[in-house]
């Protein structure tokens, strides 16, 4: 039994020219955690996710998973290690059905994807798992529809479903409710609430209702650096955080 956290960064830095998008970020995500990352626009939240998933390489610092250095591990292999993400702006397979969207992800994880000679629809195991996953997100009624025809809120759910198809140990949700009309946002909140407990979830969001309801721990990022970190109560009561970020709408 190692005491190392599931995912950890030490002094993680990334600069884009003169802009330091990530500055000495020390961060820990425990197994099964519910962790929120908040901060004003341009604070480097999405850059941090890109660093964790390997889309962007750090200029300095290390990323550890279960104590093992994965800083140099490429994106595709990090997915195999159990790091999955969703995107702030939908990245779906728009011309395909909802089922096919999830199928692609499940087929990739189970190693079915390279097979060329059997029809995709005959892989009953992949179809069953994909449908069960859609069922858990209450999406089966839309499974046959082309994903681009769905209302935006339900497209956001497909975004989550694709990530869950990878059976991640760490799930990074980049503003899951972004762009969703408030009348529909509850379906996203419900889905986030019902995520399997064993998955460690890091969520970025501007919706303070969601963040304070969901998170056991909150990290505040400002100008690429960790500004504060603690329980929702500590963050809510932190006067500095209230000043820079929560503003008038702060709650304790």
């Amino acid at each position, binding site marked *: 039994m190692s005491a190392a956290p599931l995912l950890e960064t030490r002094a993680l830095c990334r600069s884009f020219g003169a802009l330091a998008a990530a500055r000495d970020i020390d961060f820990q995500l425990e197994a099964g955690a519910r962790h929120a990352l908040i901060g004003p626009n341009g604070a480097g939240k999405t850059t941090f996710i890109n660093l964790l*998933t390997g*889309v962007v390489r750090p200029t300095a610092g290390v990323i550890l998973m279960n104590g093992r250095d994965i800083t140099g591990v490429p*994106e*595709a*292999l*990090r*997915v*195999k290690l159990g790091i*999955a*993400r969703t*995107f702030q702006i939908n*990245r*779906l*397979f*728009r*011309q*395909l*059905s*909802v*089922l*096919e969207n999830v*199928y*692609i*992800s499940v*087929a*990739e*994880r189970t190693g*079915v*994807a*390279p*097979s*060329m*000679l*059997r*029809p*995709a*629809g*005959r*892989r*009953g195991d*992949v*179809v*069953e798992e994909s*449908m*069960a996953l859609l*069922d*858990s997100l209450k999406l*089966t009624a839309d*499974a*046959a529809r082309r994903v681009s025809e769905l209302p935006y809120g339900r497209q956001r759910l497909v975004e989550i479903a*694709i990530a869950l*198809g*990878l059976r991640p140990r760490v799930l990074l949700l980049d503003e899951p409710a972004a762009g969703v009309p408030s009348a529909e946002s509850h379906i996203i909140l419900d889905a986030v609430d019902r995520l399997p407990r064993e998955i460690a979830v890091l969520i970025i969001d501007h919706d303070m209702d969601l963040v304070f309801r969901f998170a056991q721990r909150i990290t505040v990022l400002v100008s690429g650096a960790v500004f504060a970190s603690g329980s929702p109560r500590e963050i809510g009561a932190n006067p500095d955080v209230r000043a820079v970020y929560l503003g008038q709408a702060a709650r304790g």
Partner: protein
Amino acid sequence: MTSPPGGWADHAAARALASRHRLRAWEPIPWLLALAFYFAFPKYLGFGTEVLVTILFALSLDLVLGYAGIVTLGHAAFFGAGAYTVGMLAKHGIWNEPITGLILAALVAALVGLGSGMVLLRTQGLTLLMLTLCTMALLEEAANLAHVYTGGFDGLDSLPIAPLLGRFEFNPLYPRTQYLYVLSVLLVCFVFVRTLVYSPFGQSLTGIRENILRMHAVGAPVRRRLVVCYVLSAAIAGIAGGIWAQANAYVNLGTLGLDRAATVLIILVLGGHGRLYGAFVGAIAYMALSHFLSKIYPTAWQLGLGLLLVVIALFAKNGILGIIEAAARGRRAPRAT
């Protein structure tokens, strides 16, 4: 949540996925028509053979362009590689058996696809388009310079191709053997491509086409998939080129040229890309139209084709098949709801 007792196989989405690869009732019709053409128009078998080869070539392009979303303007590189493989081996007395000749043509074209694909497929969009064009131009110039082997600008003619299966002569004046031979090879290649696009591999290719960044994010080895697809497509294009050389007993620089690469792209867009049968519809429409237009307006027939393409590009992004599909959906919709 519990899944239904019999599993999800009966759900509409699962059924749609499980049935999309099944043979549709109309699918034998084009093949029967092709066979009927053989008996009905013995005088047009030369033209018919040319159309079938073009369909095969367009089919290979559909795999990379229509399914994987690789935009290329240099696909004739593989057609030419196959054609010159057959032509040079036959002309220099090394190998002239047709079927094994096609296999060699496929292998050489696949190697060219592997070599160029591993470099080119690191890029996307306009860069990729230009690089495919450059690769083809390099090959064309190489074939021009190596005239000792390739015949240079004049090409290689009167290729001594052995009779098919040791029995059926390729007679350039009465291309009956050629027609049935090309039709059979087209059928085999079509079954292969059809199987491929409905497989999980084919599904992942459409995933790359629809959203390459998401494919990276689900852990797919995107570049490897693209290279595999590119190599398979190159092999089929090589077969098309090889069989063209065999059928005409002739190979020239035109097999490697931009003209051929652009024409096949136009054909696929005209018929509808990413649809398997778009290659058939496009090739027949394009070649029949140019055949008749050039008879009516010998000097300005390409103007008619150009206008048609403008109309297709503006109003029917999915080509002729797209129009038919939309019409079929429109007729079915009132009943479905």
